[in-house]
């Protein structure tokens, strides 16, 4: 039986852990900017209430962006892992054959476009999920904008990609494709 050559990370994150992190940090921001914060007067001395509120909102926004980037990166890891396994183990189902047609083990994995190669394969195979895949592709454009430092004018409206929407998208992707995605087997498991 073929063995996987790719050096996968054994300690990859889970969607749950990323969401827990977001919830905890948001709670910390909530506390810091509330009158329940025993250091409130010291932390926000000389500031007006609207200034404190604005600062809190800015911090919420940055946290949302950070969490969105992590969650979308997690979703990418699901599809990239699946892509690598299908190609390296030379699987024979339709999606795997489609991938293997373009796959070259000498090329680096990131040269295969996530949106145009990896996700397009799923959209072709599951046309009933095309809208969901397209929604993910659009979110990936937002993620790329964040990941590369937001230095260009984003074509879409960034405010559209609220953290709640990204979390919801990640859960729908996971539940829709969970049974079809290939995962790195744990010790003792087989693919």
């Amino acid at each position, binding site marked *: 039986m073929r063995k996987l050559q790719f050096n996968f990370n054994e300690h990859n994150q889970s969607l749950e852990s990323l969401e827990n992190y977001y919830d905890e940090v948001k709670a910390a921001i909530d*506390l810091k900017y509330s*009158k*329940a914060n*025993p*250091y*409130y*007067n*010291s932390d*926000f*001395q*000389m*500031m*007006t*209430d609207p200034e*404190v509120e604005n600062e809190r909102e800015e911090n919420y926004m940055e946290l949302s962006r950070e969490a969105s980037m992590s969650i979308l990166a997690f979703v990418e890891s699901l599809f990239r892992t699946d892509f690598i396994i299908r190609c390296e183990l030379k699987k024979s189902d339709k999606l795997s054959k489609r991938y293997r047609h373009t796959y070259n083990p000498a090329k680096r994995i990131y040269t295969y476009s996530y949106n145009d190669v990896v996700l397009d394969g799923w959209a072709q195979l599951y046309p009933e999920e095309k809208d969901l895949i397209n929604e993910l592709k659009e979110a990936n454009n937002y993620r790329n904008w964040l990941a590369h430092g937001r230095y260009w004018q984003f074509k879409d409206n960034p405010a559209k990609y609220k953290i709640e929407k990204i979390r919801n998208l990640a859960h729908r992707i996971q539940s829709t494709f969970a049974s079809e995605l290939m995962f790195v087997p744990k010790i003792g498991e087989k693919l």
Partner: protein
Amino acid sequence: MVDFKNFVEQANKAKEEEAKAKKFDPAERIATFKKRIADFYAKIDNEWLQPYINDGSIRSEVQDITITEESLGDYAVPMKKLFIGDIVLKFVPVGTILIATPGRIDLEYKGRTIMFVLVDEAATSASDLISYEIKINGEVVERTSQKKKFSGNLVWKFTEKGMRVRYQSIDAESFQRLIMGLVQ
């Protein structure tokens, strides 16, 4: 983690302080603030930049602007502009209902800001002004106390926003140095 009892106490304390604050006279508060602003502007013209104002090398102009504070509503305050060649410095009163100070004027220049705040003459940092007590289950676990004896005399000092806020006294030299540092 803040326990629920502490959370409830803090919320009720905040409500009591708000109720106390509501007994104050808004008109009097605004009038006092405007007087403080006028005193500050007078210091600029008659002390800190006097020779330059007098010989016309620095031009000073005052116009009314409207600011809004939740407990006071909209009211007019004087904004001062200083013209030094092509340099335009704006002194914009921010308000009188702020945390730890009854008055703040922002000096603005091309997106940069220096804050002038009303504090006790003896105060040099935030820890001089603010004391707090933290209790867990009714037991005091942390307490600070005001380290300095206050004069009771409020003066304008300048500072910049940051984690370690220090209030610096103003005289002609420090004011002029401040302007040069802001512009360069």
